[in-house]
């Protein structure tokens, strides 16, 4: 018999997702993967919010999560737009090669 899944489990899951996202940002060199890592971080937040909302039996957390999703979409759209502008001038998505400014 498996132990029931509690709020604490979700919080641990969210902490792990946050860690994966941060490690991804720090170690990967492809801009697309960096943006995916950011999405993972924001989804860690969403897991947190939904778990708390369920635990507290409220709607606020779920509404907050929907707003976070909206913002994530806007951010990704602008991010890809900027990346395309850069790609037109530079033909690369590798962070190592984006080196005009001292990183």
């Amino acid at each position, binding site marked *: 018999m498996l132990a029931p899944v509690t709020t604490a489990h979700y919080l641990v899951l969210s902490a792990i997702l946050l860690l994966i996202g941060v490690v991804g940002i720090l170690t990967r060199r492809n801009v697309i993967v960096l943006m995916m890592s950011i999405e993972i971080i924001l989804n860690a937040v969403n897991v947190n919010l939904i778990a708390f909302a369920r635990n507290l039996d409220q709607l606020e957390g779920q509404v907050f999560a929907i707003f976070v999703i909206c913002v994530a979409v806007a951010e990704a759209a602008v991010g890809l737009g*900027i990346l395309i502008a850069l790609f037109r001038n530079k033909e690369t998505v590798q962070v190592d090669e984006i080196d005009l400014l001292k990183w």
Partner: protein
Amino acid sequence: MSQYYTATDHFVLLPAILLALFGCATLLFDFLIFPEAKQRRWLLVFLVLGEAFAGVAFWRQQSFLLEHGGNLTAFRGALVIDHYALFFHWLFLAATLITGLISYRYLEVRDEHHGEYYGLLMLAQTGMYFLASGTELVTLFVGLETMAITFYILVGFLRADRRSNEAALKYLILGSLSSGFLVYGFSVLYGISGSTRLSEIAAAVAARDAWDPVLVLAVGTAGAGLMFKIAAAPFHMWAPDAYEGAPTMITGYLATASKAASFALLLRLFVGPLGPARESWEPLLAAVAVLSMTIGNLAAVTQTNTKRLLAYSSISHAGYILLGLVAGSPTGIKGVLVYLLVYTFMTLGAFLVLTSLARQGMAGDDINDLRGLMKRAPGHALWMLVFMVSLAGIPPTAGFLGKFYIFWGLIETGHYTLAVIGAVYAVVAIYYYFRIVKAVFVEPEEAEAGPLTVSLGTRVGLAVTGALTLLVGVYPEPVLRLAQMSISR
């Protein structure tokens, strides 16, 4: 008007509605009404009109508060208009207007004059409105992101310039990472309090021990996210790159309005709901402040790019402002507000002078581009001297006033070591600000230097920022009264 949208709600929200409306109208007019690129320059008029309408709305709020006292809360405690919020609203309004006015000629010579620029400025200010007035986590987060996403676009506005593209990309990656941290902290705060309103979070935080691990996690992640936004070390890596690559007046806007907005949120959170947990965050903030002053001041010494130099200087200024929060006494908090106000005007002024150095195909941001400015444009050179003296914090300019109140607050609360460290770094800062002054006044003119790109907007902007920098330094009474009024609730 229903119970979901009362007359008070409307009165409080009106400036943001106007700004967003004018911002969106600019975007629409840009491609629907004006078919020719040349006509779209007139969209600057929209910016001036939008700011005028918003200004009237703020003025009405201000006179209402002065008449009736107290605060105006709206949307069941999601937004508030108090003197503290209004102080920042006026600051954002002035910064946005000056930035818009000085952009005209710069965008012209860089061949990137598009109407949406002015719309984006107003939308950024809409985000700032929610940062200064928001008292609820979702509102604050959405406001922060409205501002941040607009800034990502503005930083990368010179589409053909690879440096601008690169700066935008780096700012976007690190900026969204910091937003992720911040909202993670928000989610934990929601978890421990069961509400997204700051007043209820305050009660939940006060009921817990300052070293409670969950609370420390929330304060740590939210704090780290905010330190990114104000460009304090060790979260400053994006600032020099973003500042260097962005169009010059956007660099100025980023260094002033965006930083002030993030400080507005920082103060609201740390003085308000997170205040009871001061024991746990005060040493951390002190460390961040000292590190910012160290890295900012020492790295600025070796810079050859003026925008990069000012970026490091703005990192060190963030350190000084944080010291006011570390002191935490009314004098310290007053110092933060005064410092933010004078910092906004002197930094905007300095970037304004740099903006007029731009010529066809070049940004004019090397320190050598400033050489012989005294012969080329004595007016600009003298104002630059005023801004540099003020940034270095030498009396009788406004910069001295900000530092004075921060140090006073520190000494009052017994933080003598921090005050001494701050004073020592202020001396280091004089060296690199006077490198700029030396280039302007002493070094010979570059042979091929052409005329400056000056417009009416530049002249107005220079006169306003310069006069305020001098006036506030000589006659600080009104600013002090304004700051005092803002912190007394």
